[in-house]
């Protein structure tokens, strides 16, 4: 049996034919759509490397059965930058060395985008650290990650202020 999966990925509607119901959203993105920016770490929801936004909410793509999210809007790391202009969270990770090897970085950045949209951590570093606890970094770039999230929060609220 073939399943027709409809997803809007980074603003583009896509129809994906699945011959197997077991495929996770993570495997759809990486293996079927060719968006390999989203990483597979533990594949069990423990490391956060596969974090994407599903209908604006950050989730672990490895524990999302693709068929269950038929019709959803997905944002991955590839959908953040506008052309050559980095998203403020991406720019802040570069500015603050929020990574070393970089493997966890797409998940960290997507999680941070979700965290900032939730609007609960604000500029409290403890709340940022707690809110980012679903993303592990084996290189332990946590200090830089926290700084990057705080700066991106400031930058994005300033941008909001100017555009309002």
């Amino acid at each position: 049996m073939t399943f027709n999966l409809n997803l809007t990925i980074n603003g583009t509607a896509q129809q994906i034919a699945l011959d197997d119901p077991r495929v996770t959203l993570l495997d759809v993105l990486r293996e079927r759509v060719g968006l390999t920016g989203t990483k597979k770490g533990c594949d069990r929801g423990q490391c956060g490397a596969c974090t994407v936004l599903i209908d604006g909410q950050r989730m672990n793509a490895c524990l999302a059965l693709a068929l269950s999210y038929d019709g959803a809007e997905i944002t991955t790391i590839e959908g953040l930058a506008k052309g050559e202009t980095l998203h403020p969270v991406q720019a802040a990770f570069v500015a603050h060395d929020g990574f070393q090897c970089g493997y966890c970085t797409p998940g960290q950045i997507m999680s941070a985008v979700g965290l900032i949209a939730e609007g609960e951590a604000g500029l409290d570093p403890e709340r940022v650290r707690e809110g980012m606890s679903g993303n592990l970094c084996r290189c332990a770039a946590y200090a830089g990650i926290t700084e990057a999230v705080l700066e991106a929060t400031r930058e994005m609220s300033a941008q909001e202020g100017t555009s309002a």
Partner: protein
Amino acid sequence: MNRFEYERAGTLAEAIGAEGAFLAGGTNLLDLMKIGVQAPARLVDISRLPLTEIEPVEGGLRIGAMVRNSTLARDPQVLAKYPALAEALLSGASAQLRNAASTGGNVMQATRCSYYQDPLSPCNRRNPGSGCGALGGETRNHAVLGWTEGCIATHPSDMCVALAAYDAVVEISGPEGARSVAMAEFHPLPDAQGAGDAPLAAGEIITHIRLPDPGAMARHARYVKLRERTSFAFAIVSAAAALAVEDGRITQARLALGGVAARPWRCRTAEAALLGQPATIETFTRAAELALEGASPSGANEAKIRLARKIAIRALERAAAGTPERLPALPASLFAGDDNG
């Protein structure tokens, strides 16, 4: 993972009686399927059932089973009247998992006993009659109350501990009709052979959780959780406490423990002993002794009994002090400054 048939239930009527395993958020079931602990032939996707409301009823709340854990933790009615529930939810898992996990799924989640999670280990819960691999094994996460030689696993939920303290009721629909069970009695305790009867019959589904009015306890409720790291870890022991205090005397009391048994452990004898007493450390210490009455180690985990007493005392102390206006940055944590209560 085994190959399975997939079907989506659009209505509750379609879900009730459907054959197969219910898939909601998937954060637990898909994980168990990946490691070969669960292998359902058929998945019935209930994630789109219209059970997503949090409605005020009779002074309390009625929570749809498909409400996501993050939505429940942020709900203004929950934060105002059931802050220990919000604190418990926020002390569990990660933000990503809370965005996916459902209320009903949280109740139905499997134990995190590592022997249950290892298909090569004997486990009466996973494979009845095979024995218990945890006996004599690594038992930091195992029971000290209500266990048998058949099974020493604990229920891992934080949410359910707070719900049990708040006298929550689980609403269930099935082919034989609707029924309700107290949260504190929903999860079976093990019998001599193993995990005991399943909490739901075939085809039954949790539709709602109902919470009664907490009255004067609303702003005197806390959740405290001891774990190996301050975030994104299951409880070694935890406690939910709620109190009403008038003129220095306790007029209402609730206490439930987590991480100690196969169900959230409601401490009714301790609650009775708190009534009419002054809200002091001496009173709380006596209550904590009663809360752990009958506790015994199921392995090299005797320390959990002492830890659970201390966590119960801390939860009662924090409840007496009053719930802070805003939940602390590190929910339910013991390791933080004054801001953390």
